[in-house]
């Protein structure tokens, strides 16, 4: 009775949060799982159909196309989103002119702050064939004919990967820089005493010492692979849809546009399953748990 009096108010404070999570996290998850086994109609009876929805999706070539698009685009972003910010962070670390370093960090971070509508919209304009800045510049410098970057199959995925890596570079770069700053300075001193050059210090001190930061970033970015949606939603167009439509786009189209809720829910659970698989794979690959 005394504990209840003492702690009662705390449980009361926690109540809204608990209700929120049950209603908007746990219940949708369970409901989604249930729906994936149903012939779900917005009204009327919703009979259970076993694994039929999973089979429908599994036999849908559009799904597999979206699956490969996700792996290629997501994989590209995963790799590029690791190396690009790492290189930029190492390069920034070599800059001793503090105002320049600060300004660079400040500017590189801005695209991460902006939405995909803004970034994607600006990309579409910059890359447009007739009045786009990029094509005008290429024409002037190299005399190239305008390229319709966002309508050609061979460019579409590269543009998606490139713009995503470019957008989040500043963010991941800050994480790497934080890791570099945390390295014990006496390691560099010792290396210098032994006559290590600048390049050797980078190779034998900085990089090995960053191993943990690298693992964390790789793991965090893994979760993003299957969640790509906003970018594609903004930058896709019918000409390249077959090359860039990812799994989330497939779910969205099945569920919201075609109102085929059952198969959409089944597709969602393939995504959940894949997320788990990928996470485990990356944990194993980076030996995350052995730190």
């Amino acid at each position, binding site marked *: 009775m005394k504990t209840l009096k003492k702690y009662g108010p705390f449980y009361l404070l926690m109540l809204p949060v608990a209700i929120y999570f049950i209603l908007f996290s746990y219940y*949708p998850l369970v409901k989604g799982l249930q729906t994936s086994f149903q012939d779900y109609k917005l009204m009327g009876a919703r009979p259970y159909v076993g694994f039929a929805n999973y089979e429908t999706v599994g036999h849908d070539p559009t799904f597999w196309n979206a699956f490969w698009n996700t792996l290629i685009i997501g994989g590209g972003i995963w790799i590029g989103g690791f190396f690009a910010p790492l290189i930029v962070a190492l390069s920034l670390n070599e800059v001793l002119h503090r105002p320049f370093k600060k300004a660079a960090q400040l500017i590189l971070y801005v695209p991460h702050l902006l939405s995909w509508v803004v970034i994607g919209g600006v990309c*579409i304009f910059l890359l447009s064939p007739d009045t786009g800045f990029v094509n005008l510049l290429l024409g002037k410098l190299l005399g190239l004919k305008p390229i319709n970057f966002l309508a050609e199959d061979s460019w579409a995925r590269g543009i998606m990967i490139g713009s995503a890596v470019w957008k989040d570079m500043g963010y991941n770069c800050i994480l790497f820089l934080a890791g570099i700053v945390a390295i014990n300075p006496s390691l560099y001193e010792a290396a210098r005493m032994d006559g290590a050059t600048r390049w050797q210090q980078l190779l034998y001190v900085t990089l090995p010492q960053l191993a943990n930061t690298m693992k964390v970033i790789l793991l965090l970015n893994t979760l993003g692979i299957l969640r790509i949606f906003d970018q594609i939603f903004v930058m896709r167009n019918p000409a390249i849809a077959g090359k860039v439509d990812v799994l989330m786009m497939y779910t969205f189209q099945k569920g919201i546009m075609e109102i085929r809720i059952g198969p959409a829910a089944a597709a969602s*659970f393939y995504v959940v399953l894949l997320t788990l698989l990928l996470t485990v794979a990356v944990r194993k690959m980076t030996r995350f748990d052995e730190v």
Partner: protein
Amino acid sequence: MGIDRYDRMGWKNKTFDALNYAFLLLLMLTMIVPFVNVVSLAFSSGLASMRPEMILFPKPFSTEGFRIVWQSLDLWRPFMNSAVVTVCGTAAHVLLSSLAGYVLIQPHLPGRKPMVSFLLLTMMIPQDAIMIPLYLVNKDLHLLDKLGSLVLSGMVSGFSILLMRNFFASVPYEMSESAQIDGAGTMRIFITMYMRLAKTGLATVALFEFVSRWNMLTAPVLLINDPAKTTLQVALKSMIVDTSSTSSSFLITTNVRMAGVLITMIPLLAVYPFVQRYFMKGIFLGANKE
């Protein structure tokens, strides 16, 4: 680490430094040039903005684009919707996260461990993967086409709760114990002590939430159909991307679109200095999950 980190005299080092600066400068230009291009286009006249030229300076200077996008295309309406959703959503998010964070720092609270697990598990559920059932839940609650659904979406998160808990944990618990002995109630201690001492935490969570809410796209696309309730991101998307589907009788010129882009960016650029200040603290405390 001082200036004497390397011997910077050799020609090799000098070349390296030069290349390094050039690389970073080039990278920065890929961000500065598009921005300058967008700004100049937005402040150009309609005709000038449609010409195939690399425009890095508005000529002739005109605010016509802003006038058209704000008044003729009614961008003020989605702007206000976004503002309402962002402000209400952020306020609710900060309040709920800090309340829950406050509960979690009570050292002897029975059932604290399961509560933490309950929260951590929500962070494992990929929100986007459950977008179809989330749509159904909102439909069942009659929230579709209501701005309330956007405030509710992501109204609290495990991440923010843990962040607030970690900020509160830096306030010595003895202080709240002695306040209790002096007869202060639970809420009073929370407001007068924790909310005041963990201002940095409140600011961090508020800024993160502000940015992600202003940029929110999936939720409004999913839950809002009524054009009067649409948010700025969705309105901008249809203005920029879905050119063919715009029903307006006149052609939307580039300066108008770029004015829309700038208007969408302004609130974020306004809070950017603060984001810079709180960003690092947020990442590190957020990473610490017990």
